């Protein structure tokens, strides 16, 4: 029996990311601070449903990004990403 993965792909976090950045972030690319892997955010491993949204590197499982939405604030820690690259608005 294959264990059920406990994560979804990064597309599952598209709504959370768009609510914070104001644009579709699934085609944004980034580099993992831990292992250097380049990836689209859609390719990351998303852990949802808990206290916040966590995106992890598909290469090393390191935390790339954490997001929390409270009634008053949105919190973001993207220190697990060396950079984020977004397509320029048309």
């Amino acid at each position, binding site marked *: 029996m294959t264990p059920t993965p*406990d994560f979804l792909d990064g597309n599952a976090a598209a709504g959370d990311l768009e609510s914070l950045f104001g644009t579709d972030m699934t085609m944004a690319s980034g580099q993992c601070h831990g292992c250097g892997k380049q990836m689209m955010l859609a390719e990351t491993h998303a*852990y949802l449903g*808990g*206290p*916040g949204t966590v995106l*992890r590197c598909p290469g090393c499982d*390191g935390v790339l990004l954490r997001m929390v939405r409270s009634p008053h604030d949105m919190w973001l*820690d993207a220190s697990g990403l060396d950079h984020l690259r977004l397509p320029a608005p048309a």
Partner: protein
Amino acid sequence: MSVVSRGFRGRARDALHQLPPGQYETTGFPVLSAGPTPTVPLDEWELTVRTETGAGRRWTWEQLLALPSETPTVDLHCVTKWSKFDTEWQGVSLDVLLQDVESSADYALVHSYGDYTTNIPVEDLLDGKAWIAHRYDGEALPPEHGGPARLLVPHLYFWKSAKWVREIVLMHEEERGFWETVGYHTYGDPWREQRYQGD
């Protein structure tokens, strides 16, 4: 007589069940994870307490099980708003683990296998308020719920009850953990609805 007596106790206990503000009751046991479930072979598992001087105490799995254990029945309150009544655990009280640890630290940062951390005042780990739990509902604690062993601090929101506990670091200055550094409350008292920073 005994049936009447059990029924009376049952009603009395139900009457004590109250939901903290903003919570609802669930009879399931939701699994919430911020990362992959670690696999920790029991012959490699260990729990460490490290003090502000760098001194440490370490227990293997066999040593943990050899310590006197308790069987607390407690209510759980998750910050995602579910509460679960009368959960039955077995574990070792932090009073036992910390009794011979020389420390004057006021704060603890709890580390899990994996990269999860959470901060708790030392006084909230003592006086019968916290356990290293290794059995749940009469069975070995399953990995998805934090097995082989997790911290159990039921008077605080359940994110403080770190799954897959590995190390407790005692310190003079409070250092915030995984969720506390992105907006969640530093203390997390469900009865005061301390969900987020500023609550």
